[in-house]
């Protein structure tokens, strides 16, 4: 990977005129960042943006780039990887929404109402019960994630095996 980047850098230098043409458009797009761009001088153009722009104009660069990242794309498109992403999404998204809602319900209720000031038992009000529930919630979600993550790890192992053939 590093070697390829270096190859690309060399290519970029030979195409300096091309780059400076792109540089103009890049700079005009990001007028706020001119100062910062200048600190980094023209060398920086070669990687992300210069690289892609160049690739579309230079067949050699295009070929090297494709071979560099084909493996990653292949892994991403593999069934196991898609399953991993889906499993992670199905767990993390709903539970993250849940804990954020659960967390903000406490300050919203205490700020805009007095319902939590009523007593649960003894002198302990519902506000305290809800506050302790936040701790229980955090620990429970930690345990649930640890368990679920074990199944992610198995999938990752499978993906790594497949990638290494």
């Amino acid at each position, binding site marked *: 990977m590093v070697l390829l980047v270096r190859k690309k850098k060399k290519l970029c230098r030979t195409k300096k005129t091309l780059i400076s043409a792109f540089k103009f458009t890049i700079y005009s797009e990001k007028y706020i960042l001119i100062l910062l761009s200048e600190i980094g001088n023209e060398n920086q153009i070669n990687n992300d943006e210069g690289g892609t722009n160049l690739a579309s104009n230079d067949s050699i660069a295009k070929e090297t780039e494709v071979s560099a990242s084909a493996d990653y794309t292949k892994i991403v498109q593999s069934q196991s990887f898609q399953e991993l992403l889906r499993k992670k999404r199905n767990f993390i998204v709903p539970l993250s929404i849940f804990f954020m809602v659960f967390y903000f319900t406490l300050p919203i209720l205490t*700020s805009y109402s007095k319902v939590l000031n009523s007593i649960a038992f003894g002198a302990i009000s519902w506000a305290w019960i809800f506050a302790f529930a936040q701790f229980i919630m955090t620990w429970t979600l930690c345990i649930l994630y640890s368990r679920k993550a074990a199944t992610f790890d198995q999938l990752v192992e499978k993906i790594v095996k497949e990638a290494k053939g």
Partner: protein
Amino acid sequence: MNILAFILFLIIVGLTLVITYFASRRTKTTADFYTADSSLTGWQNGWAIAGDYMSAASFLGIAGMVALSGFDGFFYSIGFLVAYLVVLYIVAEPLRNLGKYTLADMIAARFNEKKVRGVAALNTISISTFYMIAQLVGAGALIKLLLGIDYLYSVIIVGILMTVYVVFGGMTATSWVQIVKAVLLMAGTFIISIIVLAKFDFSVIEMFRQMKTATPLGGDFLNPGNKFKDPLDTLSLNLALVLGTAGLPHILIRFFTVKDAITARKSVVYATWIIGIFYIMTIFLGFGAAAFVGYDKIIAANAAGNMAAPLLAEAIGGDFLFAFVSAVAFATILAVVAGLVLSAASAFAHDFYGHIIRKGQATDKEQVVAARWASIGVSILSIILALFAQNMNVAFLVSLAFAVAASANLPIIVFTVFWKRFNTTGAVTGMLVGLVSSLLLVFLSPNVWSPVEGAAIFVGEPLFPLANPGIISIPIGFIAAIAGTLLSSKKADAKKFDEILVTANTGMKDPI
């Protein structure tokens, strides 16, 4: 001067220097210096995260706030803990898989450009410096109160110690100082909690019953609303607390000290247990101080209530417990500032020097030397700033650190890993706008401006009504990152994103 406290201070200083001596013999390469060669176990890193996180603000600040305002102080405990779910679910594993030494490494894994790395490093340095000044000012005031040493000398002593740990022992010394401190802090807090609970016949119900009449607030002590009266400000604070942790660089670099994402995950889980148990105990500290020290005495020692925990230790455990808790508070400060020096120094040495100035061509030895000098530079700078900030209300520095972390760092971390279209322009715009908007809003806030002389830094009406800018600046940070991406005519590099997706989720860096 309290002789017993002084001896315990010396013991702690001695212990940390022994740790540093052994760590220095193992600190030779950049990997040793920045990440302790990723050799920590999940348990060790869990304790170290807890030690890095439970700052003097948590230990002394929350205990004081609960003692003075009851329920409202506990909001901090809840927010500081729930924040770890964001770290666990969203940040820790991709960060470990993508990064090497710094937060900027992770973002540069996708956008390998100097300006992206430069801005990310700038944010790290800003956040760590604000946080460090707050810790140093707190440390100076605390040592002055506990030992009667002048503020100037207190700050310099702490400053020299933190420099020694980091320069000689790097991440290994920093980690072990944090682990030792976390164990001491948990032990001290546990002992106090048990004694407090014993005074209420080991009954939590009895404790709550007695607290109704123990303070000047009466029954209201147990109800929310004593400290946070503006609903929007309360929500803003809670938002910054829960999202800020996942963007704090000194916490995030801790994930590079373990060997892989699985261990990083385990260390967050261990840390969450330790930190959670600690924050539950802040109730006993706060209630105990309110009941057995009393409102007037706490206020007399320090208007913000920062002395509540040491005074409680004195009231229920006598001189020895007071000395022990004071020494623990001192260790707490040392461990946190060491972590902060390391995170700022690694941004300077690894990101600015190593990647931007030397373009990744510096030898390992040169980098270690640069990192050591950067640590010295960061320490001297923050000591000088802390000397100027002596009479400042430092609460705004901490709120600033959390707001910048949540507004400038978190959007970029999330989008780098999860958003296919995200591009360089979006990353740079998001980071800069997040940084500037949170700085500006804090500068215009009641933390800086107050019509009452002495209540804030300047006299005058605040232009921005909220003390916590998070509810405005965090959405601004996200929107700026999105807007920068969508408005830029450049297309995101889809293949690069495939690479990021694979590395972030599996840890594979070079397939085949």
